[in-house]
């Protein structure tokens, strides 16, 4: 039987039973408005559901009684014995039809015009009603008699001819009997068949009760585990045997209770065929939906939470993935696109795949969008692996749809999908191949109630890490093959020829002495976790067993702490916090995508720090390799040498609809020739400049220690990078070669002239990059190599209008400097702008607290200049 029909029958049987009682009550208390509206509501519900299920006969009867009840409710009719009788009669009629419906899954043929007619007459007013009250037997016999006498026989004949052959034999007696005796037969029929079968086989149980049962069973499981732990290892314990039995029963009970919460995933898919149909009509696409494994069951709670994300993903597939029929044909595909949903169980998890054979994800397009939306800089995007770029679509505010349609493209979506999936301990993975479609794989736990966790110890306290996010465990010690290595105090681990970034749990949780150093010689364990496509290791002191636990939410005041996803009571009764690897990753890196284990970038972008810089290495000429900070580079391109043109004697190429000047690193080297040439593109607003090099070598992350010896113009000096002496390119030199006014436009506020600026920066590279820039903008720049030097300058009586300072410096840090200035009478009003490679809100807040006027990212030249003039004007106003 159809689920919907079954549900309807069960529900209606219940409702009708209530109605019987209520109606009798109503007769006794005719003026009880609550009772009346309750009755009205039930009849109305029955009517509504009938219409929805296409049960016209039921609907007609229900509608007629509703009419009468409506009048009574509105006070047009009064509650009389006759009225109640009439409605009870129609309820009996409904019962009769329901009984047949349950047997043959169809309404019995025939109609109830007699009853409906009488209900109609009654509803039409007091006159008919009072007339009826006089002798209801007559009312039944007279005007309705006509209908009853003339029409039903026709109907019987017709219906008999048309429908009887198709009907199950069992239906005939009931149906025909009803027709012969009219309404009187209906109650009899019900009484004869006894209680409705469906109604008696199912009981409705409140979800609350089920939830409570679940909690109790969970507690039972925990207690069982506790007992098992106690007798573990004792073979001759007298409790062993009964405990074994208890264990079995508990497991079975747990499974049973879990089953009550299970629902087929098909329930969450029910609305999809319609959605796809409407969408494809709207968009003029042809889409076929295939659903595999709709019977796969999962926890009701999980189902509810997964519903919206699924709908969204399918919508996305149709809207963004599947192409228009013509486009598909041109690409040699079938005109009808396919969206496939596949659900199956896999080791305690349920996997849902949403696949389409559409155009797939255009990575370039995604990167472009990310830059446009300001979610990543061109340089960051350049350094991204494909997996990382794919992850961009999960960022808030991202949308690849070129136009915002009513279907999608509003840029709310994938991030919400990801959040929802992760909220229930799931993961989402994307696979895309351009032109062939994409598949999203959602992996979610079967139930939220009980999860398997790994218990670890750190700083003397125990914590639980969900198994789903644990990839492997690595033991490290000074003597084993794995050791923790340090890059500028950032611990990393060599694991199968990859560098795995590590986070210290004790550091994140501020446990123990809070010492920032990670001990590298003791025995420690690393829990390798995966969050999305990103892997990282969590350093813990000890690893214990895995345990099945019941996740309990933490108190509201702890919910802001991202690293905990809940807490639980272990078998021994102690409470442990459950760690959320997502939250740990976010806390550890701030920018969530700084590392990626599978990508080849693992070696080049471990956690960013102030001192290490990502550098682009290239060769030009015969000398030492050259390097330039990747953050300054907009793109890496290759141009055909034949494409070079000349404009006012300068070599240019057409690039993105504009002319871009080309500057060879080696002065005077001829550019013409055959083949391609690699070009490093620097961009600023709408202007671009191409630096022609011989070969792009690599991207590395290194600490920059520039030994200043400007051997030739265009270099800042040299540094040891990747083991080789490398020339660091002075981009300023080449930029001004391309556009002599490169640093001038936009900055032009002449009012800056003679403003004295103190630049405090420990890195010679940044000093040299920023100083000309600031001078060009009209500031009178004084340099200080450290906070201490800056303080000395200030103490010696030098006067500055504004101070620009790095944050992380040896000795006096930027924060200390700002505090010192703020507490000094002479400097307390001097604006101080912080320069940092971190620009997270926390840093910003800390900066402001320390007394900085503004906080700017190091490479953001425009922001720096804007911040400077703004801070100056504010200071000016105040003065």
């Amino acid at each position, binding site marked *: 039987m159809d689920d919907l029909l079954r549900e309807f029958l069960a529900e209606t049987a219940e409702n009708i039973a209530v109605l019987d009682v209520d109606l009798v009550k109503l007769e006794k208390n005719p003026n009880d408005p609550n009772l009346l509206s309750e009755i009205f509501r039930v009849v109305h519900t029955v009517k509504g559901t009938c219409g929805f299920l296409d049960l016209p006969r039921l609907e007609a009867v229900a509608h007629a009684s509703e009419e009468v009840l409506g009048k009574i409710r509105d006070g047009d009719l009064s509650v009389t014995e006759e009225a109640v009788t009439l409605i009870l009669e129609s309820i009996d009629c409904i019962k009769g039809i329901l009984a047949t419906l349950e047997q043959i899954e169809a309404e019995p043929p025939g109609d109830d015009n007699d009853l409906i007619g009488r209900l109609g007459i009654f509803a039409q007013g007091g006159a008919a009603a009072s007339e009826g009250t006089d002798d209801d037997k007559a009312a039944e016999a007279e005007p309705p008699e006509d209908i009853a006498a003339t029409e039903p026989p026709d109907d019987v004949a017709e219906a008999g001819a048309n429908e009887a052959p198709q009907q199950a034999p069992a239906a005939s007696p009931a149906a025909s009997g009803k027709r012969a005796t009219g309404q009187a037969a209906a109650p009899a029929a019900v009484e004869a068949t006894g209680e409705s079968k469906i109604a008696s086989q199912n009981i409705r149980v409140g979800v609350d009760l089920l939830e409570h049962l679940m909690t109790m069973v969970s507690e039972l499981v925990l207690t069982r585990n506790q007992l098992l732990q106690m007798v573990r290892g004792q073979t001759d314990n007298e409790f062993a045997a009964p405990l074994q039995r208890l264990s079995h029963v508990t497991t079975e009970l747990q499974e049973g209770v879990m089953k009550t919460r299970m629902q087929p995933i098909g329930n969450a898919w029910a609305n999809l065929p319609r959605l796809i149909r409407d969408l494809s009509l709207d968009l003029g696409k042809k889409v076929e939906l295939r659903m595999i494994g709709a019977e796969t069951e999962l926890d009701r709670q999980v189902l509810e939470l997964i519903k919206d994300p699924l709908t969204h993903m399918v919508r996305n597939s149709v809207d963004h993935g599947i192409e228009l029929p013509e486009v598909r044909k041109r690409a040699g595909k079938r005109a009808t696109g396919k969206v496939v949903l596949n659900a199956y169980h896999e080791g305690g998890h349920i996997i849902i795949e949403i696949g389409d054979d559409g155009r797939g994800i255009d990575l370039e397009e995604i990167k472009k969008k990310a830059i446009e939306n300001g979610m990543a800089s061109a340089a960051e995007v350049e350094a991204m692996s494909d997996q990382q770029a794919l992850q961009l679509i999960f960022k808030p505010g991202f949308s690849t749809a070129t136009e915002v349609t009513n279907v999608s493209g509003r840029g709310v979506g994938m991030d919400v999908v990801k959040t929802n999936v992760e909220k229930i301990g799931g993961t989402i993975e994307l696979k895309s191949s351009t032109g062939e479609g994409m598949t999203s794989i959602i992996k979610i736990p079967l139930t939220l109630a009980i999860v398997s966790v790994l218990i670890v110890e750190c700083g003397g306290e125990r914590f639980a890490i969900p198994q789903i996010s644990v990839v492997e465990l690595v033991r490290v010690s000074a003597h084993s093959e794995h050791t923790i290595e340090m890059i500028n105090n950032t611990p990393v681990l060599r694991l199968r020829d990859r560098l795995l970034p590590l986070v210290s749990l004790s550091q994140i949780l501020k446990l123990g002495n809070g010492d920032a150093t990670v001990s590298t010689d003791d025995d420690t364990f690393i829990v390798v976790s995966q969050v999305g496509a990103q892997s990282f290791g969590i350093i813990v002191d000890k690893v214990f067993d895995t345990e099945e636990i019941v996740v309990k939410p933490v108190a*509201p*005041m702890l919910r802001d702490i991202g690293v905990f996803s809940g807490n639980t009571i272990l078998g021994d009764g102690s409470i*442990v916090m459950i760690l959320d690897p997502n939250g740990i990753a976010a806390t550890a890196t701030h920018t969530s995508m700084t590392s990626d284990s599978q990508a080849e970038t693992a070696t080049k972008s471990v956690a960013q720090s102030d001192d290490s810089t990502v550098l682009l290495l290239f060769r030009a000429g015969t000398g030492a390799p050259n390097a330039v900070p990747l953050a300054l580079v907009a793109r890496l391109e290759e141009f055909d040498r034949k494409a070079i043109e000349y404009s006012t004697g300068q070599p240019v190429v057409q690039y993105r609809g504009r002319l871009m000047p080309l500057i060879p690193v080696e002065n005077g080297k001829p550019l013409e020739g055959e083949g391609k040439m690699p070009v490093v593109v620097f961009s600023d607003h709408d202007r671009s400049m191409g630096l022609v090099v011989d070969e792009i070598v690599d991207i590395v992350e290194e600490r920059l220690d520039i030994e200043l010896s400007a051997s030739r113009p265009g270099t800042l000096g040299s540094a040891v990078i990747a083991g080789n002496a490398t020339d660091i390119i002075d981009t300023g030199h080449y930029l001004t070669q391309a556009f002599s006014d490169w640093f001038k436009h936009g900055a032009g506020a002449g009012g800056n002239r003679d403003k004295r600026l103190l630049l405090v920066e420990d890195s010679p590279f940044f000093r040299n990059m920023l100083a000309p820039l600031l001078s060009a903008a009209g500031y009178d720049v004084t340099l200080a190599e450290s906070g201490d030097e800056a303080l000395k300058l200030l103490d010696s009586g030098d006067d500055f209008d504004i101070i620009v300072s790095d944050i992380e410096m040896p000795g006096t840090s930027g924060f200390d400097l700002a505090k010192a200035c703020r507490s000094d009478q002479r400097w307390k009003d001097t604006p101080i702008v912080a320069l940092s490679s971190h620009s997270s809100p926390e840093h910003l807040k800390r900066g402001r607290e320390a007394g900085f006027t503004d906080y700017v990212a190091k490479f953001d030249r425009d922001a720096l200049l804007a911040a400077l003039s703004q801070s100056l004007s504010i200071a000016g106003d105040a003065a």
Partner: protein
Amino acid sequence: MSETPAVGPAAAEGARGDHQEFVTVVIGDQLFGIPVLTVQDVLGQHQIAHIPIAPPEVAGSLNLRGRIVTAIDPRVRLGLPKRDTDGSRMGIVVEHNGELYSLLIDSVGEVLSLPNDCYERNPATLDDRWREISAGVYRLEERLMVVLDVARLLDFGVAEAA
């Protein structure tokens, strides 16, 4: 944290007739009263599990018959110095929005039924931190009893997030 001033006697839960019943507790040197109906349990000396990086008001969590109870140290809210014996202290378990909390106290006294005419609003000069979580004062014969507004006492997470 300086929002609306403290509320009148109606806010003190357990207001029935012309008397109110309070469980009296001592925190620091001060006698406090907690409306008796909000109190679920009184815990003797008990162990509290530490929760890392939690707000300072949160002393930890404990297991009360299979339910996780968050232990709150009112001393932090009141600006009193923390006690050294943080590991084991007495607690009054209260329910708030379906969650259980244990308020750490120094000692618990008797249950008092106090007439309404002994009630007074917070003195205007009361420290802001105290005013925030005090629902008024009862004049007892020998000393004063401050009524703890449990809902406000537990409100700090939200207040900080806002």
